[in-house]
């Protein structure tokens, strides 16, 4: 390993150094400052005689006399099953005073793409116990389903609720082995210490920490490190899922901070910026994170991802949510106005979506009427919401009886279906039953999205009479 003292330029998070032997692209670099600190970085561009290095911890303290060492390998994550229950920093070093980690394997953190031919299509229903997700935007194993939120909204409570409650129903009676197969990887990317404490306390309270690996890059940790934290988390997840047969749920928060870090590096490299100054390759870069969710044919485990991102000024067309939405298999939207109404969790189902829902539900998986019920709930809620605008102008009296029913439906939907509290764990059957209770406000003919047999079976005659009576 050769040492150089040949730094020619330091700019933002980047260091340029002259070299006299070839250095590989993406290789790991150690820089020793005159004060004796060792900083780590990665080769961003390598040409004959000159390399540019991105320093994870920031370039503070580096001067022209700092020595640069090239480790001759790309960044690796030491992985082992013993990582479960451990807390690591954003670069993968333990910070919980636990025993030293003896790795079984050291894996490249970039991670090769899964061959689409080797994938297995995800279709195993995960019950989160949240009606708006299970009933309307079902999560399945191997899916990547982000939570789109905004500043000041309770997305963390929702993520914790999911991490706590997620189960696969039919396995409940399949013995206790299955339960231990479940692992949570939590990647904190630039969140505040307070938020991080919230997560940690909840993990400790519920005993979830034992089956979790936590990566912590906090708001005051170096920004450049944020580009590696999620990769370390996902490398660990892949190892546990595809080597050790765990069903891994990866929660990454907050992707917005990750993208800010990308932009910072892009700007320092004087790259041609794309939309709003984010680099043009952000789509590819994000895809390399999100696409690491999935199932592989012939392997037991799975990687399910729930990335959380806060939309700057709640704008879903902002490049971060926009590019994310194009890669992930749907999105769960946390809504500000529902939140101020006190709905817990305040999920806005109309803009939310789970693309893998149709294959994960139905006869044998959840219940035969699931798909129809959710479609009908969507349509009815959309109609009710539209009418709210109209009511503001013309008043309730000017609306027909049918319209009034839709208005009532929309209100009851928010109060009974959406609202459930962060500690209520509803089974999918309970969720569907609440759905039927609400739909039974309408006469049978209005339920045009539901199969007629299902109406016969589940429609609650009394409910419509009650609704009729109150309407009169």
């Amino acid at each position, binding site marked *: 390993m050769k040492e150089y003292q040949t730094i020619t330029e330091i700019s933002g998070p980047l260091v340029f150094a002259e070299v006299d032997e*070839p250095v*590989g*692209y*993406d*290789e790991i670099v150690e820089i020793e400052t005159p004060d004796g600190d060792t900083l780590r970085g990665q080769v*961003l*561009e*390598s*040409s*004959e005689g000159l390399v540019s290095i991105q320093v994870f911890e920031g370039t503070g303290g580096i001067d022209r006399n700092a020595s640069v060492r090239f480790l001759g390998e*790309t960044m690796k994550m030491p992985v082992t099953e013993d990582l479960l229950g451990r807390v690591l920093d954003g670069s993968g070093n333990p910070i919980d005073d636990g025993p030293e980690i003896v790795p079984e394997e050291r894996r*490249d953190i*970039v*991670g*090769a*793409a*899964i*061959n*689409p*031919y080797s*994938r*297995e*299509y*995800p279709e195993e229903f995960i019950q989160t116990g949240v009606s708006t997700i299970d009933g309307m935007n079902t999560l399945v194993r191997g*899916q990547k389903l982000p939570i789109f939120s905004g500043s000041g909204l309770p997305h963390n409570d929702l993520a914790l609720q999911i991490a706590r409650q997620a189960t696969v129903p039919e396995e409940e009676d399949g013995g206790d082995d299955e339960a231990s197969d479940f692992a949570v990887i939590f990647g904190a990317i630039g969140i505040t210490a307070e938020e991080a404490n919230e997560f940690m306390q909840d993990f400790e309270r519920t005993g979830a920490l034992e089956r979790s690996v936590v990566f912590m890059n906090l708001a005051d940790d170096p920004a450049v490190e944020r580009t590696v934290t999620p990769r370390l988390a996902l490398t660990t997840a892949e190892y546990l899922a595809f080597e050790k047969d765990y069903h891994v749920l990866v929660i990454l928060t907050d992707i917005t901070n990750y993208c800010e870090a990308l932009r910072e590096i892009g700007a320092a490299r004087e790259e*041609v910026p*794309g*939309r709003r100054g984010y680099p*043009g*390759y952000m*789509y*590819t870069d994000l*895809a*390399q994170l999100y*696409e690491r969710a*999935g199932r*592989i*044919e012939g*392997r037991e485990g799975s990687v399910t991802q729930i990335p959380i991102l806060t939309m700057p000024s709640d704008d*879903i*067309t*902002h490049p971060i949510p*926009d590019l994310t*939405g*194009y*890669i992930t298999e*749907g999105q769960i939207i946390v809504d500000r106005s529902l939140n101020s109404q006190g709905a817990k969790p305040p999920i806005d189902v*109309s*803009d939310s979506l789970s*693309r*893998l829902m149709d*294959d994960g539900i139905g006869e044998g998986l959840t219940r035969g009427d699931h*798909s129809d019920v959710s479609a009908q709930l969507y349509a009815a809620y*959309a109609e009710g919401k539209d009418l709210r605008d109209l009511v503001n102008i*013309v008043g309730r009296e*000017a*609306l*027909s009886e049918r319209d009034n029913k839709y208005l009532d439906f929309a209100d009851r939907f928010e109060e009974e279906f959406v609202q459930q509290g962060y500690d209520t764990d509803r089974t999918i059957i309970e969720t569907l039953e609440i759905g039927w209770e609400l739909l039974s406000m309408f006469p049978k003919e209005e339920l*045009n999205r539901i*199969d007629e047999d299902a109406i016969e079976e589940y429609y609650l005659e009394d409910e419509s009479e009650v609704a009729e009576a109150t309407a009169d």
Partner: protein
Amino acid sequence: MSQAQDTETVREDGIIESVSGPVVTAADLDARMNDVVYVGDEGLMGEVIEIEGNLTTIQVYEETSGVGPGEPVENTGEPLSVDLGPGMLDSIYDGVQRPLDVLESKMGTAFLDRGVDAPGIDLEKTWEFTPTVSVGDTVAPGDIVGEVPETESITHKVMVPPDYDGGDVTAAEEGEFTVDEPVVELDSGEAVTMHQEWPVRQARPALEKQSPTIPLVSGQRIQDGLFPIAKGGTAAIPGPFGSGKTVTQHQLAKWSDADIVVYVGCGERGNEMTEVIEDFPELEDPKTGKPLMSRTCLIANTSNMPVAARESCIYTGITIAEYFRDMGYDVALMADSTSRWAEAMREISSRLEEMPGEEGYPAYLAASLSEFYERAGLFELLNGDQGSISAIGAVSPPGGDFSEPVTQNTLRIVKTFWALDADLANRRHFPSINWNDSYSLYTQQLDPWYRENVAEDFPEIRQWAVDVLDEEDELQEIVQLVGKDALPEDQQLTLEVARYLREAWLQQNAFHDVDTFCPPEKTYQMLQAIKTFNDEAFAALDAGVPVGEITGVDAAPRLNRMGTAEEWDEFIDELESNLEAQIRELY
């Protein structure tokens, strides 16, 4: 390849000068533009994209981590080409035509390793060849000389390659051959094999382009009914995420009546490609009853696979499509999504530090898009037959804003526009194609076909539907202000009819066994049933029946069940007579 000097000069190999992501520069490399090279000790596949003095810039189709200056670059002296021959159907390729199933077994892992290459078609496998020419026949480039049963439903036709001279047949044998063994020999000294190679960035020749007059029947009501695309036509499907682009593309790949489907998954989700791989072998082609996969060729370059291969996958797809077109087939090419392709161009362009055009896209974006769509069309082939390629490109505009460069440049070229609408998608109105914004410029030239093959009055009844929907659009603005009940009765009735058009006719459930495919006859009958309701209802209204009573008849909501009814013709007949009877009873 075809130029003589290539074979004579020995091309010099070079040395890597710098590496930055997928862009590598090499010194001392003697190469032409677009030559394929192998980069580094691992032999990663790449393509020459810029030559400046002694420096050659290469885009690498694989991950470049760990590659450094000083490593060798080897030149193949050939442009990026695809292997054409039997064995392409029922296959799944990456963006540079490496078969993904072969890669899996060669790499021995579910993850895509580097530096592994494999030919696009199996060179070892033997195929049963039957000549269609005999000794003494004269053949020219493009002529069919024999047939191979490639899959259950498709006969592969072996052709004289377009760059041959042609001549008299001196030998033509029936039997089992590998793709590289000569099957027909010519007196010009040329030997025809089942294997052709063709550079992807160059269109395969045809005699001339013709105006298409037959629709690509999609089995989707809004497309067949309102906005048809011709066989040999071009269409774009732009829409924000979650609006159903991919489902629409999948529906077309499944149910359209093309002979061959080439599906290019360009920079999209891995799970979506898996869905196709798992679903298609189980689905039946409505035309032949054979598995859909046996007429399908998949190209999957998912979003996390190397960006340079994403740039080339569109070309790989269209070249394979052209090859099947040359056999006289009607080919449908789906590209999902062309925006990812454009972004790949942008990414490479920005690494080259080219002067950016609009929104950072390279200035040649429009040219590249039109070049791609122009390779579609109805063609008179070299051998005098006809063959077609219909190109359908999904567009993913950032933020769903159609004014961005990729959507705008695409719209200038394509003749069918299916605008997906997030608002419709949010109400779960699928397919969420907006009927006010979409258009098809093929309607007129396809009308004769519809008159002859579906119903004499098809164009008229379609126009009626369009008018009702237009009127609804205008009325809705008033309704937003004053409420529906404030409208005069006839307008209330129009709204009700329009609602059935939307909910019963335009909506179609892609996940329902019956509703997923709707033959044009059924599309017509369903529309006819709604028209019957309309005519009867207005007659009743004229006779003084209140609108509430008319719309309240029991049979009316049954219109919504037409799409999913098992025996649709009986169901619709019965429904029409019920509607008639029940409404007439009111007066």
